[in-house]
């Protein structure tokens, strides 16, 4: 019985920490998108499609960033290509 309780506890321990890990990832992602124009997610997806016509890349192989400076914005695009 005690052992069962212990095992159950161990499994439960995970549920709150799983929640924490998932939240840290999604919140970081959300914060990246803060202040970005609404078209960014679509732009990211379409860019990924174009790249995929030529090279097979993963969903998370693309990283897109919009930085605003004084009078212009810089669109930064990072794509990790698989080793050929």
């Amino acid at each position, binding site marked *: 019985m005690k052992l069962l309780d212990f095992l159950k506890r161990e499994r*439960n321990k995970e549920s*709150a920490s799983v929640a*924490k890990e*998932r*939240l840290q990832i999604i*919140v970081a992602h*959300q914060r990246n998108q*803060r*202040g970005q124009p609404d078209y960014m997610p679509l732009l990211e997806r379409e860019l990924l499609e174009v790249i995929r016509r030529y090279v097979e890349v993963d969903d998370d192989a693309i990283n897109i960033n919009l930085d605003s400076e004084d009078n212009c914005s810089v669109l930064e695009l990072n794509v990790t290509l698989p080793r050929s």
Partner: protein
Amino acid sequence: MAKIIVVTSGKGGVGKTTSAAAVATGLALRGQKTVVMDFDVGLRNLDLVMGCERRVVYDLVNVIQGEAGLSQALIRDKRVDNLHIMPASQTRDKDALTMEGVGEVLDELNKQFDYIICDSPAGIERGAQLAMYYADEAIVVTNPEVSSVRDSDRILGLLSAKTRRAEQGEDPIKEHLLITRYNPNRVDQGDMLNLEDIREILSIDLIGLIPESEAVLRSSNQGVPVTHDDDSDAGQAYADAVSRLLGEDVPLRFHEYQKKSLLSRMFGGGRR
């Protein structure tokens, strides 16, 4: 000059109205002239939680549209002298509230009160954005649960971008985290996010921690804000949060799991 505080969360059902009512009551009990405003047009409930639903004659939309004066719409609280309630309209559609109209009403209230508490509707649409637009401080109500924490983060993004202070480049809105429905027992079992985790993820200051409590439902049943129930854990926790809002340094309570003694288990005593 009044301090304008928005009570917001993104997600519905986390305790915005309960908290707005409890905090406003707490501030008034501490001698602050306080008005609590319902921004949830079409789904007003603050009047019920405050126990004045039968005394609503005019509402915020009537005032904005010039159909009633401010003093006609303000409802004086039955229990606390310094407290007034401004109900939302139940029948008009959401577009009845305008940015300019809300601004004018707040300007007028500014002259009469120390604190203006804005009870935001759920969501991130117009109503929620209107409720937060003129705020000086924000209380972000969060449950220890993934969807609530994520939505709170979204709201923090809006607070830092779509508000008067942000648009005019003034000092940013002061953001406070209010965790509600906290169950130390489940946290202890590893089944619920603990307050440190939530604070770390959202990275804002904790203004209060309200334990999950039977007193909350009991108080809304009766239309008496839970702050009046000063024997209850939730009532005391809200009073602590109010003290912190007023700048006092109050130690955190109700965040640790109290093992029940054999006696209280047998007789059902202990915390209410």
